[in-house]
């Protein structure tokens, strides 16, 4: 397999190798911090910060946003925000090592256009963001770490996401194949 040139096929880790490392990372994270990984929490902090900066009075009155505004510090001063910042750096690092960093590009299936892909990306993102608030976390925070720590809710979210994914995959097949 080593014959492949970088441009032909991207080099990825063996998925099982990556999985074992990711699993160990979850264990180590629990070992050090007693909590799991997460990603959607940082977006929530960003939303809260933005709303708080533009209309502080409004944020204060909103029963949801006000929950996440700490009294003495910025909502951005949050574990998950730092961790997400780390995710960006880590992604960059891996991209540099494996030579996957290129100029901005849009990836889409061959039966769809770029603009369509972007519209669906925004829609999908909005749905994901909306759902992650009900689910108390996203695929990493709830599904991966939640089920790994034997949380009942985590397993529910994991089954829900993948189950629904398969159920609706047919309707969006034009996007991907």
């Amino acid at each position, binding site marked *: *397999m*080593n014959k492949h040139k970088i441009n032909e*096929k*991207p*080099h990825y*880790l*063996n998925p099982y*190798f990556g999985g*074992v490392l990711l699993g*160990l990372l979850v264990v180590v994270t629990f070992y050090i911090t007693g909590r799991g990984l997460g990603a959607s929490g940082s977006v929530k902090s960003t939303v809260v910060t933005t709303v708080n900066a533009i209309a502080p009075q409004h944020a204060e009155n909103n029963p949801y946003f006000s929950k996440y505004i700490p009294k003495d510090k910025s909502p951005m001063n949050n574990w998950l925000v730092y961790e997400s910042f780390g995710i960006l750096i880590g992604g960059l690092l891996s991209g540099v090592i494996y030579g996957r960093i290129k100029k901005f590009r849009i990836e889409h299936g061959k039966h769809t256009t770029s603009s369509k892909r972007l519209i669906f990306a925004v829609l999908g993102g909005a749905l994901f963001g909306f759902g992650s608030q009900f689910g108390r976390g996203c695929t990493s925070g709830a599904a991966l770490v939640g089920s790994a720590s034997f949380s009942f809710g985590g397993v529910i979210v994991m089954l829900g996401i993948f189950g629904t994914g398969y159920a609706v995959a047919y309707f969006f097949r034009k996007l991907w194949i």
Partner: protein
Amino acid sequence: MHVHERNPKRTLITILLFALVIVFGWITMKKPRFKYALTPQQTVDMVIGHKGCFHPYELAKVLNDKSGEVVLIDIRNNFDFARGHIPGSINITAVKLLEKDNIKQMDQWKKSGVKVVFYHDDQLQANGAWMLFRQIGYENTFVLLGGYNYYASHKDNLQKTEKTCLKGIAKYDFAEVAKKSGTVANETSTKTTKKVKVRRKKKEKAASGGC
């Protein structure tokens, strides 16, 4: 098997490392030094059944014949021990009871069926140590009723155990005493107990609702 496969041995190495970590953990794992031999329920049954009490009249027998079937352990501090102790007793301060050497000694006594009697100034202060040893499986441990204080004041007539060394007994008829001191005592006490029962129920509901 997989298109992106580059070095299949990496996976093997990682999982082997993971397995190694576990083997390493297994080997270095500290086994708990002590395990509870009695369940909490067994412990309750033990104390309810008044097992493991060592009466002063038994002490008299021990002091007379020195066959070594009974070992007395003074769990007070060195200072109190130096000021006076039951003849033939060994001084091990309560905090040091679980130290390695002492446990070795305890195991020996346990094996050879020697009775080990703990005492402090009174029964209360030796109670905890005795209960602990019973719970971690030393069935040969006992607690001296009355403690050293009783021994010191009744050195000469240990045979005749007086009631004062026994604990857990009401010295007074509480209701009677309370009544004597104030005329309404009885009424209030019954009232309060009733009140309590009502309050307790409420609290239980609140607790279960909170979960």
